[in-house]
């Protein structure tokens, strides 16, 4: 079988992967987000009451701004106890997944990382947001969902 649990969906699992890599050499946190594009459009419609067309020919500049706004409101990193803003760099479409690239500069060391991620959880109670943290070679996973949208990695 394949799973589909809520209306409006056409793919099989509610999983988004967020890779957070700390590269000590560059003093940079490199973040990529992989979200099913149809879910993201749905979420933007829900949040801003405007239909968006990310990932299609009809995509507009406003769509991109809304995406950024949505991501930054619902995906937050706190490093060593301090909230850090992410720089939104670019995005691309990989099949049905929209991949966004973000970074945080001038990070000397990460002793703790708190992740808050409620992307899509307002829409799909079964949404699973997997945070893959690579702290300069040391890996850790964090599984967030509609119920647990915050977690700490050390």
């Amino acid at each position, binding site marked *: 079988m394949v799973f589909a649990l809520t209306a409006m969906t056409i793919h*099989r699992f509610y*999983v988004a992967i967020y890779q957070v890599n700390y590269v000590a050499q560059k003093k940079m946190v490199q973040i990529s987000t992989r979200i099913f594009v149809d879910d993201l459009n749905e979420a933007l419609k829900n949040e801003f009451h405007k239909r968006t067309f990310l990932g299609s020919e009809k995509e507009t500049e406003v769509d991109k701004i809304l995406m950024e706004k949505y991501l930054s409101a619902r995906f937050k990193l706190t490093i060593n106890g301090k909230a850090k803003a992410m720089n939104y760099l670019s995005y691309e479409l990989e099949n*049905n997944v929209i991949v966004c690239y973000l970074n945080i500069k001038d990070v000397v060391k990460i002793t703790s990382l708190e992740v808050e991620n409620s992307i899509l959880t307002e829409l799909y109670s079964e949404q699973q947001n997997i945070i893959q943290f690579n702290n300069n070679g*040391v890996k850790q996973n964090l599984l967030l969902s509609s119920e647990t949208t915050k977690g700490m*990695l050390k």
Partner: protein
Amino acid sequence: MKAVANFFLLVLLISMSLVTAQESPKVPKTDERNPDKFKQMYDLLATPNMYRTASGAPGPEYYQQQADYKIDIELDDKNQKLYGLETITYTNNAKESLDYLWLQLDQNEKAKNSKSPLVESNKTDLSIPAQAFSRRYLEEDFDGGFKIEYVKDAQGNPMNYVVNQTMMRVEVPRLLKHGEKISISIKWWYNINNYLLDGGRSGYEHFDKDGNNLYILAQFYPRMAVYNDVEGWQNQQFWGSGEFALPFGNFEVNITVPADHIMEATGILLNRSEVFTVAQLARYAEAEKSFDKPVIVANQAEAEIREKGFSSAKKTWKFKAENVRDFGIATSRKFIYDAMAVKLGGKNVMAISVYPKEGNPLWEQYSTRVVAHTLKSYSSHTFDFPYPKAVSVHAQDQGMEYPMICWNWGRPDEDGKFTDRVKNGMISVITHEVGHNFFPMIVNSDERQWTWMDEGLNSFCEYMALIEWDPNFPADRGPAKAIVPYMSGDQRGLEPIMTNSESIRQFGNNAYGKPAAALNILRETVMGRELFDYGFKTYANRWKFKHPTPEDFFRTMEDATAFDLDWFWRGWFYTTDYNDIGIKEVKRFYVSNEPSKEAKEAVSKRRRRNSNPGPMVYMIEEGSADFKPEMNKSFNSKEVKTLDDYVQAHFTKDQQIKLNSPKYFYQVTFTKPGGLVMPILVEITFEDGTKESHHFPAQIWRMNDQEVSRTFATQKVISKIVIDPKLETADIDTTNNSWPKTEEKSKFD
């Protein structure tokens, strides 16, 4: 179960929402030697026996049980209830006698006393939709589950039975010996679940606008469990994730529904002339001759009239199916029906779709065509589809398979518009579910134990079928690179593919995506298509209409191809290891008449000093102490006296012309930070832009699990070396794949 559109999976997922352990998952490898990676899997596989041979084929004592069914059911559309009466004739083909029989009562997973919700961790939601809150905390549970009225023997005498959750044990009056048959009659009814509210792989969808229901009925009758040489009686309950294990048999099923319903089900329809109109019969006859496009047998205008009727008259549809493991039914007033014929192995098979108008215009355009394509594609990779038909049913949010029939999602907006993504999602799910006819409906693995055996193999075949449908199809599963994000995660958050169906966390990645990628890598990169396809076909043909185990698959793939894959199964299926191969360094060497200091020392240390290997040729490393700038030129064998003497003495002039004349020597050292052993795919680019590829089999790692070297003697100067340039091996870190180390065009700088 009290839940909104979020059945077991929700709670399952929630239960996982915790941070995994604290310390680092990556234990740096210290063992240079790791011969276990290539050890045969005697420690992991069941010992071969007379039932299942070491070759992976069914053995001389292989047997399987038979369960034949005669079922009469009636649907109460007004109250969404199903009433049934069945006679099961069970044949014991095992040499041993049976003292009881086990049946599966899968509807009981939705019973009020079901234990499925009780094995899920669930926390309190901080925010919850009012409807969900009401259903979870205010409303009474859905009263699902089988209500068994009686269990009788052939003489009509009551039989003793005990229900244990989703299973029922029926005691036989005397031992059922080898070759004997027993008949059991069971009468039951149950409340059909609205699957959009209460979840489930079957049930009904209610359409508020017109008051109709669309039923997809499955697991609707008490079904025989599998008894075999591996498990004895299958004794795992249906908790919700691990699907089904079912014996083969013949079915005769009479289904009584309101007279204005249109129906499809497993098997051949015996009384088409009684249930179709004259016009529909004529159109169906036309469809049987239409090989290039579907013919609409019951059209939308007719469906729209029918859905207003609510007839109180009844009609009985009679189906007969041979050698199937299960039976599914789809029925509604709303159904539009189209069909076409597909020629497979000299036989005509019908590809059919039924869908409500809400599925149009998408469904009339694609569904039946995708069914036909899937049958052709899968048949070419396995065996000719042996059943007379395959039906795709449009059911909102469902993707579920039964023999000859399956439910599929993919619904346009209310205004009939649909995006490419909806269309592609629908094409994927139809391909996938129709494909399940092959795995596990015919190659009948035990889904309750091993999700990957049907989902993984099927996702792999689905990928091939989608790419054959459209070479640019945006397929999510199959390509090696698609599984990289999953496999590069913290290994403590992953489990091996060889994990029981109920204990898998990332179900889609673990049981569908990873095995699909693994098989695709075997086919495209490790074995090559010819060998792989022969092995895969051999497995499918050996085990069609039988019950294979993972061992049977692993062994057949090796036995039919003389390709030892124990290292591959061990790494990909039994561990959570990932692939990461890199280039550590590249050193250029020059040929010299004079030995380097190291070479001299090595000679002086040689134990048998008197043994004379003959005149020597010396290699000097660029940049080493013995390297001189004048060495920096291309190699010419004339300039190295010992070599030139040797060539002149051993080859005629004609032979000398045919000798290779390499000019440059490079020693490349590969590292392997990843735990998997995989082939090394090397692409060399020369100064003039030309390229050359090398494939070193995985066995190159058998003596050293960390580091290996290769020397390349080339005609031209190498400007670049890249490992796995086409991303075929699911290498999780490509930053170490190039020499000279190029700063990968980073998306972050």
